[in-house]
C-alpha cells in the first residue's frame, strides 16, 4: 500500500509494530513526509522473522534502500505475551527475612470476592523459589541488621540448584538505601556470572514493597528472553545492512534503545497501545482537535485513552493480572470488540461479550468454523462491511455464514437476521457506553468537550454509533487507522522516568534540600539520555512530586516544573499543590503542612518531527461514490461507498455512507457529514 508520491531518494524512518496477528510497517520519507505502509502476518515463534520479511518486501516491492534508514524503531508484545502466558524463565527471588510471601498476598483484595471459584493470580515466582535472608533497614534507611552473606550464598546456591535462570533481589526500604541490594547483586554476579540479576532499587526505587518487588521480578522473569530476541533482531538488521541503531517503544509512550530494553523489559509491557496513543495525539493535534478520546477497537477489546493535549499517564497501570507501578500511558481496556460473541441468556435477554471469537475460529464470516454470531457478523449482515473488500480483498468474508449465525440468534429472540444484527450493534454500543462512562468519571472529563479519535480494525466502523450515545459530536479517523501504533513509534521521543521516595515535610525541609533531590534524579536522567544516543542533545525535563497534606494517606502528583509552571520556593511548591488539590476536591487548606512523598523527573530527548505530505485541495469536486444498501436506524437505506485513497482534501461526504480502505471501514450514519482535511484525516460531524 502506498500513499502520495513515489519514493524519493532521501532519508527514511521505519516504524514497526509487532502485534499478535500482524506485524505492521510504516515507512516515512523524511523530506516529503510521504508514507508507505505494509502488513505481514506475525510469527509468534520467530517475531524477528516477520520483521525481516517485511523489510525485504519493502525493499523489493517498494524500492526501499535499507541503507537509507536513518531511524529504526519498533514496538513489540513479546514481553507482554511471555508474561500473560507465564512463559518467562524460572526466576528466584531473594527478599528480607519475614517477607517471603509478598507476592502471594499482594495487596490482599481478591479479584472477585463474590465468586466462590475466584483465585489469586498465579505468582511469577513460586513460593519455593523465594529465599529470605537476614538483613534489615529501617524506614529512615539506617541499617538495623547487616546483610548476612553466608545466608545469601546458601540461598543463591539453592536457587541455582533448583534451576533458576534469573534472580530478583528486593529488600525492605531499599528505595531509601540500596547498599544491601547492591552488595547482594554484586555477590550474585560474582558467584554466578551467567544469571540475569536485577534489584528493586535499580528497577524502580519507590516505597511500596509489593509493587516494587513485582516489577523487579517481572524484569528478571522476562529479561533473558528479551535479550535473546534483541540480539536476533540486531542480527537481522546487520544482514539487511541497516545502519541505524534500533529503538524500541516503551509503556510511557517514549523510546529507548534495544539494549536498554533488554535490561528493563518491564518498561515495554504496554508499549503497543502506548504508541497508539502517541500516534493518536499527533493526529489529534494536526487535525486541530487536541482534546480527544482515543478509541482503538480490535477483535476482543477496545482500548480507550483520554487525551487532553498531552499523553495521559498513570502510575496504576495493569498488565494482565498485575499492577505496574511505573508511569505508563493511561489506557483503559473495555471488553468489547469486533469478535465479541452475541448470545441469549436463560431469561431470553440478548447479551454481547465478554467472550470473543478471537481470530481463531473468529467470527462466523471468517469461515474458519465459527458458528456464533459476532459484532463483525452484524456489520457484514447490515451491509456496513463489504465482505469482498475485507483486508483489501485478501481475506474475503462469508456473508452467508454471517447471516446464518444471526438468523440462529434471531430465532432465540424472535427477530429476523437483520433485526438481530441491528440489536447486536445496539447492545454492544450500550456495553461500550457502560464501560466508558466510569472511565471518564475517574478522570473527571465531560465527553461532550472531546472528539472521538477512532482507530484499530473496528474503531472507525463503530465510532459514530458510540459517539451518538456519549453525546460526542465529532469523530476523527486518521489516514491509516490500522497502523497507528507503528505510526506513533515514528513520532515518539526518547523518554524516561525517574523516581525517589523522599518523604520531606514542608515545615522540616528547605527548598535547597528538595532541589538537591531533583538534581540527583536529573543527573540520572541526563546520563540515561546520553547513553541512548551518545549525546545529550535537545531535551526537556519535567519535575513533579507526589504531595499530600500531612496525615493524609493518598497523594496527588503535582507538576513543579515544565513549560507551564516553575516553582522557586517551598511556598510556591505548596501553592501549586493547593491549586491542583482544589481542582479535584474543590477545597484546600493553605495553612496545613504539606508532604513531598516522591519526587519524579521525566526526561525527553526531542527530535524534529517531519511534516506529513499535504493532499491537494479539491473543494469543488465532491467525490462520486458507489452505492449499496446499508441497514441503519431501523431501515435499509441506499448508502454511499467511498474509497479512502481517492479522497481529496476539502471534500465533503454525507451519511449514510461508508469509507472503505484496506485496514478498516468507516461508517457515517444518517445525518452525519464528513470533511477530509489537508493531512487526509476524515473529520465526521455526528448529530446526537
Amino acid at each position, binding site marked *: 500500500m502506498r500513499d502520495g508520491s513515489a519514493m524519493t531518494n532521501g532519508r527514511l524512518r521505519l516504524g514497526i509494530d509487532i502485534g499478535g496477528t500482524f506485524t505492521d510497517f510504516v515507512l516515512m520519507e523524511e523530506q516529503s513526509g510521504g508514507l508507505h505502509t505494509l502488513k505481514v502476518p506475525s510469527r509468534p515463534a520467530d517475531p524477528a522473522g516477520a520483521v525481516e520479511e517485511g523489510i525485504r518486501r519493502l525493499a523489493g516491492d517498494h524500492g526501499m534502500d535499507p541503507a537509507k534508514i536513518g531511524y529504526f524503531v519498533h514496538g513489540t508484545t513479546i514481553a507482554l505475551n511471555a508474561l500473560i502466558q507465564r512463559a518467562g524463565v524460572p526466576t528466584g527471588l531473594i527478599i528480607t527475612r*519475614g517477607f517471603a510471601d509478598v507476592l502471594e498476598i499482594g495487596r490482599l483484595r481478591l479479584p472477585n470476592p463474590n465468586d466462590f471459584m475466584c*483465585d489469586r493470580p498465579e505468582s511469577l515466582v513460586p513460593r*519455593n523459589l523465594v529465599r529470605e535472608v537476614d538483613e534489615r533497614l529501617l524506614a529512615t534507611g539506617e541499617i538495623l541488621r547487616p546483610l548476612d552473606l553466608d545466608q545469601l550464598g546458601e540461598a543463591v546456591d539453592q536457587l541455582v540448584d533448583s534451576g533458576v535462570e534469573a534472580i530478583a533481589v528486593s529488600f525492605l526500604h531499599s528505595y531509601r538505601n540500596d547498599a544491601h541490594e547492591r552488595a547482594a547483586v554484586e555477590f550474585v554476579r560474582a558467584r554466578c556470572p551467567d544469571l540475569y540479576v536485577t534489584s528493586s532499587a535499580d528497577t524502580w526505587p519507590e516505597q511500596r514493597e509489593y509493587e516494587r518487588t513485582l516489577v523487579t521480578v517481572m524484569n528478571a522473569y522476562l529479561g533473558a528472553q528479551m535479550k535473546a530476541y534483541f540480539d536476533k533482531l540486531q542480527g537481522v538488521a546487520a544482514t539487511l545492512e541497516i545502519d541505524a541503531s534500533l529503538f524500541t517503544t516503551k509503556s510511557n509512550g517514549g523510546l529507548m534503545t534495544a539494549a536498554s530494553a533488554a535490561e528493563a523489559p518491564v518498561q515495554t509491557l504496554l508499549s503497543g497501545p502506548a504508541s497508539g496513543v502517541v500516534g493518536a495525539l499527533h493526529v489529534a493535534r494536526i487535525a486541530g482537535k487536541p482534546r480527544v478520546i482515543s478509541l482503538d477497537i480490535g477483535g476482543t477489546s477496545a482500548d480507550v485513552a483520554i487525551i487532553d493535549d498531552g499523553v495521559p499517564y498513570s502510575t496504576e497501570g495493569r498488565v494482565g493480572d498485575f499492577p505496574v507501578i511505573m508511569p505508563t500511558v493511561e489506557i483503559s481496556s473495555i471488553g468489547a470488540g469486533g469478535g465479541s460473541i452475541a448470545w441469549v441468556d436463560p431469561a431470553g435477554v440478548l447479551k454481547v461479550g465478554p467472550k470473543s471469537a478471537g481470530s481463531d475460529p473468529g467470527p462466523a464470516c471468517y469461515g474458519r468454523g465459527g458458528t456464533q454470531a459476532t459484532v463483525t457478523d452484524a456489520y457484514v449482515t447490515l451491509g456496513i462491511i463489504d465482505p469482498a473488500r475485507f483486508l483489501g480483498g485478501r481475506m474475503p468474508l462469508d456473508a452467508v455464514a454471517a447471516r446464518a449465525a444471526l438468523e440462529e440468534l434471531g430465532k432465540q429472540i424472535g*427477530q429476523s437476521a437483520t433485526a438481530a444484527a441491528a440489536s447486536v450493534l445496539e447492545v454492544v454500543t450500550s456495553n461500550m457506553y457502560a464501560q466508558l462512562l466510569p472511565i471518564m468519571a475517574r478522570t473527571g472529563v465531560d465527553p461532550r468537550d472531546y472528539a472521538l479519535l477512532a482507530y484499530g480494525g473496528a474503531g472507525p466502523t463503530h465510532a459514530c454509533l458510540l459517539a451518538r450515545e456519549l453525546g460526542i459530536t465529532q469523530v476523527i479517523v486518521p489516514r491509516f487507522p490500522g497502523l497507528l501504533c507503528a505510526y506513533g513509534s515514528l513520532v515518539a521521543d526518547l523518554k524516561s522516568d525517574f523516581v525517589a521516595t523522599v518523604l520531606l515535610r514542608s515545615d522540616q525541609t528547605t527548598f535547597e534540600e528538595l532541589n538537591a533531590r531533583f538534581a540527583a534524579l536529573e543527573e540520572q536522567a541526563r546520563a540515561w539520555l546520553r547513553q541512548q544516543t551518545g549525546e545529550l542533545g535537545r531535551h526537556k525535563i519535567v519535575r513533579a512530586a507526589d504531595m499530600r497534606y500531612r496525615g493524609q494517606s493518598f497523594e496527588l502528583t503535582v507538576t513543579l516544573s515544565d513549560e507551564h509552571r516553575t516553582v522557586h520556593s517551598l511556598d510556591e511548591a505548596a501553592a501549586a499543590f493547593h491549586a491542583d488539590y482544589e481542582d479535584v476536591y474543590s477545597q484546600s487548606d493553605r495553612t496545613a503542612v504539606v508532604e513531598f512523598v516522591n519526587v519524579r523527573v521525566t526526561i525527553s530527548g526531542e527530535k524534529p518531527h517531519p511534516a506529513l505530505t499535504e493532499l491537494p485541495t479539491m473543494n469543488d469536486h465532491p467525490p462520486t461514490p458507489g452505492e449499496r444498501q446499508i441497514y441503519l436506524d431501523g431501515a435499509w437505506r441506499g448508502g454511499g461507498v467511498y474509497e479512502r485513497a481517492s479522497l481529496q482534501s476539502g471534500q465533503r461526504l454525507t451519511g449514510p455512507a461508508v469509507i472503505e480502505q484496506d485496514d478498516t471501514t468507516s461508517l457515517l450514519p444518517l445525518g452525519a457529514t464528513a470533511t477530509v482535511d489537508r493531512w487526509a484525516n476524515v473529520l465526521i460531524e455526528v448529530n446526537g
Partner: protein
Amino acid sequence: MKDQVFIEILRNRFQAIANEMASTILRTGYTVFVKETADYGAGLVSRSGVLFAAPVNLGVSVMIGMPVEAVIRQIEWEDGDVVIVNDPYSSEGLITHLPDIYLIRPIFDAGELVCFAMNFVHSSDIGGRVPGSISPSSTDIFQEGLRIPPYKLVRKGELDEAFLRLFLSNCRIPDQNWGDLRALLSALHTADTRIRELITRYGREPVLTGIDGVLDYGEMRARALISALPDGDYEFIDYLEADMTPVGLIRLKLTLRIKGDELTFDFTGTDPQVQAAMNLPSHSHRGHWMIVIGVINYFRTVDPHVPYNSGLVRPLNVIAPRGSVVNPEPPAACGVRAAAQFRILDMTMGALGRVAPEIIPAAGAGQISIALVATPDIADGEMKVSVLQPLCGGSGGRPVKDGIEAGDFCTFLRNIPNETLEHDLPIVINRYGLRPDSAGPGEHRGGSGVEFSFQLTGPTAAVTARGMERYVFPPWGRRGGSTGTTGLTMLRRTGEAAESIGKIDLLNLRQGDELTLLTQGGGGFGDPFVRDPQRVLADIVRGLVTVEAAERDYGVVILDGAVNEAATVARRQERVETPTGEYTLGPAREAYDRAWPGASQESMNALIKQFPNVLRPFARAELLAELRPLATKGSVTLTDVEAAFARLSERWRGPHAATTTVLAAD
C-alpha cells in the same frame, strides 16, 4: 420481543450511571476508607425504594437488597433535595451502623418523580466514645456516635448550613467528613444529569418501564436459579464470639428453606440481641443485603451474567425474630455488625452446601479484623492514630480445588504497604506472611491464614481491634475435610515469654513489646487422606505444611524430601476412623454443643422473652452465670434451664418482690 434487547440496553445504561457515581466518589473522596479500603457505595433506586443498579467491581460490592422504602416514606420529596441519614433504626434496615453516611437524591422529570440516586461512605469517625466510633464493647448505639434520622441536608438546592455545623461539630474529623460529603453530592448530581439524558433519549415512560423491566429480569433469573435447587429445610448453627465482652458466645441458627422458586432465611432460635456491638439491625427486611450475600454469591458463581440489582432478592424471604441479634430493637449497638454478616455468609454456605455440593466451599476464616494503633509522636507532640494491616484469613477448601491463601469471600479490603506502616508508626514489622500449618487439611485444603508480627520501637502505644472472630471455634471442614485453625494473638513483653492473649479490645504496649496476630486458615474439603501425596509434598516445598503435619493430618510420610510411597500407604491404612458427615466442626465446638445443647439454649431464649426487652440481657446473664457450673461438669438440660428460670422469676417478680427478697435476706 424487542423488549429483551431494550432491557439489556437500559441495564447497561443504569449500570454505567452507578459505576460513574462510584468512580466520582473514588476520585474525589477524602478519607482513608474511600481511598484505600473501598468502603463506599452508590446505586439507583426505584420510586418504590428498590435498588435497580449498583456497581459490580467498585466499592463494597454488597449493596444488592438495600431497602430504601422506609426513608422514602418519611420524606416529602422535592426536586433539588438531598437527604442525609445514618440511623439504622429509623432507616429500617437500609443502614446497619452509624459510620455509614448515606445521601439520597430524588430525580424528577417535568415534575414527576422518576427514581432516586443514592450513595454512601464509611466515615472514619462519626463521634461516640472511641476514635473511629466502633468498639465491640459498646453496649448501646448512643456510644457509637451521632444518629441522623432522614433529614434534608439540601432543600430544593439550598444546603442546610446550620445542620451541617451541628453534624460536623459531633465528629472528630469534620474536614474529612465534609470532603467526603462533597464527593457524594457531586456524584448524585452527575446521576441526576445522566438520568435526565436517558429520559431525553428514550422518553420517561420507557425508562420507568425499563426500571421495572430490569428488576423483573433479575427476579426471573433468581427464581430460575432457586428452582433448580431441591426443596427442603436446611439448618445450620454457628457462633459469634463476643467473648472479649461480658456477653460471651452468641448462637445463630439459620434454617434455609427452599420451596419452589422461593428461599427463606429463617433465624428462629437465634440468640436475643446483646449488649455488645455485634447486633445486625436487619428489621427482618425481605432480601436484606447483609443477610442474603451468600445466596447472591451463589447466583453470581453459577451465572456470572445475572443482572446485578435487587430484583435478585425478591424471592428471598427473611424471618429474623424481633429482639434477636439479627433484628435488634433500639438502642442495641451495632458497630461490629459486619461480624454477624460474615457469620451469616458462612452459615448460608453451610446450608447451601447440602443442596449445591459441587459449588460451595468449606468455611473460610470468617473475619475481617481491623486493628488501630494510637501512639504519641515524640517529634510532633501529637497522638498518631493509624490502621494496622486489615486481617483476613484463608478461604475454605472447594469442591474442585484448594482454598484461597489469605483471602475469604468477604476480602474486598486492600492492605497497607509495610514500608508505609513503618514510616508512619514507631514499629518494626518482623513478619507479614502466610501462616504455615493453618490451612484445614482436606483433599482440597483450606487457604492459609496470615501472620502479622511487629515490635513497638516507640515509648508506648494503645492497640484496639474490632471484628476478631473464630478464636474459639475454628472454620469448619466439609465432607471429611478437617477444621482450619483458630485465630491467635501472641504478646511477648520485653524480656518475657510470648503468651496467647485472645481477642483484643484494648491493649497497651510498651517499648520493645512484640505483638503477633495470626488469622485462621480455612476449613478443608474432602478426606485429607485421599489428597494426592505429591500435592502434599508441593505444600511442604512451598513451606505451607510441615513434614510433621503432613504425616499427622494427611498420612503422607516424607523421607529425604520425597514421598515415601510404601510408608504413606501403610500410614493411610492404619487409620481406624474415616471422617464422615457433611461438616467437621472440631472438638471445641462439639464439646460446647454437648455442654449447652441447642434445645436448652433455645428454651432459655424463649423463657426470657417473658421479660421486657430491656431486662432480657440481664436475665440471660443471670441464667448463664447460674448454669455455667453445670455446663462445665456435664450438660445443661432443659430441666436445669427451667429450674434456673423459675428461681430468677421468683427473685424478679416485681419491685415489691425484690424489696421483700432483699428484706428477707437481711
